[in-house]
């Protein structure tokens, strides 16, 4: 395929789509499928077949539309107009289909209002095609402008130009730390090495975050195109997508997308008629959070235990099989086609001066509408929770938002007006992380939440370095004493000291950030900790507190000497 063929393919597909009077898109993302979207789609397909409407109406399985808690979602698109229905059943799907045919309003189901804030307040760049195309048809991605950026880059830009463009856009890593993507690419480009690799990190392990899964499910070609652009920019011919093991659907869609792209000459040898060769293979994770850490992830790709190694050397110098390797998050790669296609300036104009572009968040927890949103960097937490998310359900009060998962921290109500960008969140003692935002109301107990995350880190620690392996267990034990009403203020001091040790001396990011949920909740909710310890009281009513006072020093010593068997073995 050469660039002209790509244009023809896009035009043909656009014509085909315009030939329908109406296209009915049914979200086929994991949450909507769980809610019964495939039955809805089947009903629509049957209805169309029975009515002999094949030429007029096309039911389409699309990617994620956003408000996942309101699924299954159905989008009716006709003559440039779009309406979205929520919580669709096969019954209401039949009504919707009937109304489309007759050109009337369905009698008992009504669509979401056109200014529905959850949708209207977003700015979709990475998610532009999510919920708008069928992720399993490459033609639809191409018709939406897909592979245009790659075609442009291969024929009109040098690899240096691509690196420069990414640098100028101000794009930063969307996986957590926010390292400037352009710098990473330039380092990998300059690193000497005959073979180089591009790796997309889709091992989205933060509980409560599913942006990457949704991107891979809803728009897999965007990730592949971003990776191919990276391959061209740094001089790599091989890429790997590391997909979290739990994400079967994402893995399957990526597999299909790679096959289709290779068949069309958009991946493989001599991509789009150029001299650039690029193959992508999938590697499947097997249930280890630490593999989100780049050196662990590479160990896992090479078929080993996912244990990190000391950096330097950094992956850009010595990565897979000792070769320079570029690792970016899936969302970062998904932003690249837009950066290259629409220009760095356009991208840099979105967001704040230091955090440019948009960010996808998985909004969930105690919020009216849970789902996936994409907003410009710098949007305030208040806008996200109360305008887009519709506020806190059942008249409860907002207490805090947890961001960055087990590596992050919380943002309390006093900072609702904080703009969500890398710097502001860091100032508050949390991190942007991959984009999970868990909203908590007054029924959440902060020491309990911290204990939850430490339990997670303890379980996910790889065991290579002593501070993380043992320190996280000891921290979790101390937190459990606090949440069970058996701790002393001395335990709190020990906990804080351990936070410092584990955060400072651990080998990799997992250990270094494991104390964050404790430090952050202590920073804003120290009273709650004191309440648990001194009054043996849990205001949220989550912790079951011991009846008797904390055992004194003697009691503790006795426990130690007896060796209370824990959950260790």
């Amino acid at each position, binding site marked *: 395929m050469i660039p002209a063929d790509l244009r023809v393919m896009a035009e043909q597909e656009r014509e085909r789509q315009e030939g329908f009077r109406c296209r009915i898109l049914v979200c086929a993302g994991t*949450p909507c499928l769980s809610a019964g979207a495939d039955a809805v789609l089947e009903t629509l397909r049957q209805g169309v077949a029975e009515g002999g409407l094949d030429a007029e109406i096309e039911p389409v399985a699309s990617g994620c539309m956003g408000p996942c808690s309101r699924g299954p979602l159905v989008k009716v698109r006709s003559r440039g107009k779009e309406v979205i229905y929520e919580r669709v059943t096969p019954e209401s799907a039949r009504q919707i289909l009937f109304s489309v045919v007759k050109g009337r309003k369905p009698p008992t189901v009504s669509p979401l209002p056109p200014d529905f804030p959850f949708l209207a307040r977003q700015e979709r760049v990475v998610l532009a095609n999510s919920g708008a195309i069928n992720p399993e048809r490459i033609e639809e991605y191409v018709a939406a402008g897909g592979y245009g950026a790659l075609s442009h880059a291969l024929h009109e830009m040098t690899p240096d130009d691509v690196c420069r463009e990414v640098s100028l856009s101000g794009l930063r890593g969307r996986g957590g730390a926010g390292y400037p993507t352009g710098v990473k690419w330039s380092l990998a480009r300059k690193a000497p090495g005959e073979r180089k690799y591009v790796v997309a990190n889709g091992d989205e392990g933060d509980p409560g975050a*599913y942006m990457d899964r949704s991107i891979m499910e809803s728009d897999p070609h965007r990730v592949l195109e971003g990776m191919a652009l990276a391959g061209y920019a740094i001089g790599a011919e091989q890429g790997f997508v590391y997909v979290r093991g739990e994400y079967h659907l994402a893995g399957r869609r990526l597999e299909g997308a790679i096959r289709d792209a290779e068949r069309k000459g958009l991946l493989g040898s001599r991509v789009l008629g150029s001299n650039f060769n690029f193959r992508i293979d999938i590697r499947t994770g097997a249930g280890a959070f630490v593999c989100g850490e780049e050196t662990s992830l590479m160990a896992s790709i090479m078929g*080993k235990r996912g244990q990190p190694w000391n950096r330097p050397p950094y992956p850009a110098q010595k990565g897979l099989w000792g070769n320079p390797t570029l690792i970016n998050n899936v969302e970062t790669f998904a932003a690249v086609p837009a950066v290259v296609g629409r220009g760095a300036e356009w991208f840099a104009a979105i967001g704040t001066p230091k955090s440019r572009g948009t960010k996808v968040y998985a909004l969930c927890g105690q919020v009216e509408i849970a789902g996936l949103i994409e907003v410009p960097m710098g949007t305030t937490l208040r806008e996200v929770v109360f305008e887009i998310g519709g506020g806190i359900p059942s008249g409860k009060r907002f207490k805090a938002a947890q961001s960055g*998962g087990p590596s992050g921290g919380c943002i309390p109500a006093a900072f609702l007006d904080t703009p969500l960008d890398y710097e502001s969140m860091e100032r508050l003692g949390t991190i942007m992380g991959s984009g999970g935002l868990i909203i908590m109301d007054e029924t959440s107990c902060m020491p309990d939440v911290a204990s939850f995350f430490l339990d997670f880190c303890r379980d996910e620690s790889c065991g290579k370095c002593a501070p993380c392996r043992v320190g996280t267990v000891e921290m979790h034990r101390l937190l459990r004493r606090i949440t069970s009403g058996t701790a002393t203020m001395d335990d709190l001091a020990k906990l804080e000291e351990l936070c410092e040790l584990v955060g400072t001396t651990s080998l990799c990011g997992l250990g270094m950030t494991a104390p964050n949920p404790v430090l952050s909740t202590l920073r804003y909710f120290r009273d709650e900790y004191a309440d648990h310890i001194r009054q043996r009281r849990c205001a949220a009513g989550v912790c079951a507190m011991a009846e008797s006072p904390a055992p004194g020093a003697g009691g503790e010593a006795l426990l130690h000497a007896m060796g209370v068997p824990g959950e260790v073995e």
Partner: protein
Amino acid sequence: MRHADKQSDSSLSPALASDPRFTAVERTLKQYQYRPDALIEVLHVAQEAFGFLSDELMDHVARQLKVPLSRVYGVATFYHFFSLEPRGEHSCVVCTGTACYVKRSGEIVKRLEGEFDVKGGNTTADGKLTLSTVRCLGSCGLAPVVVLDGEIAGRSTPDSAAAAAHRLIAEGKPEKKPVAERPRRRGRRGGTP
């Protein structure tokens, strides 16, 4: 001299060699050209075909890929996906990701543990049910989530989960949601680790 250089098929029992499930493993080995770095991919396929990784399977994979036995065991136990013991007839997975936790999925786990007298991660004595937890299935919009034999049940409660698990064991198959009208295309894999 490493053990992997021994005659490659010598240890394979006739029962395993003639097992139809074994062909998937062989195909994957071949597909990856017996490269050591394919270990995890091969274990994935083996686990899916057999439900768990027996010593004999791991031994075979080690010899074929020419990696030390200890490394195969190290990898198989490092990753939570792999199980070295047969699983129960049915599986019940409770999501304990943050969103589900905040919506009290811990209570569901406790209730199921009590109801079936089994600790999370284990199989009941009668081999009927394996109860496990998973860190976020990415269906946070439906929290709290329970997965019964691959069927996701969103917005679960301790009562609904216990009732559904009992029905699963009694009826031998996961119940269809009221909206589903035909067999689902997504098989048993949906979200079960």
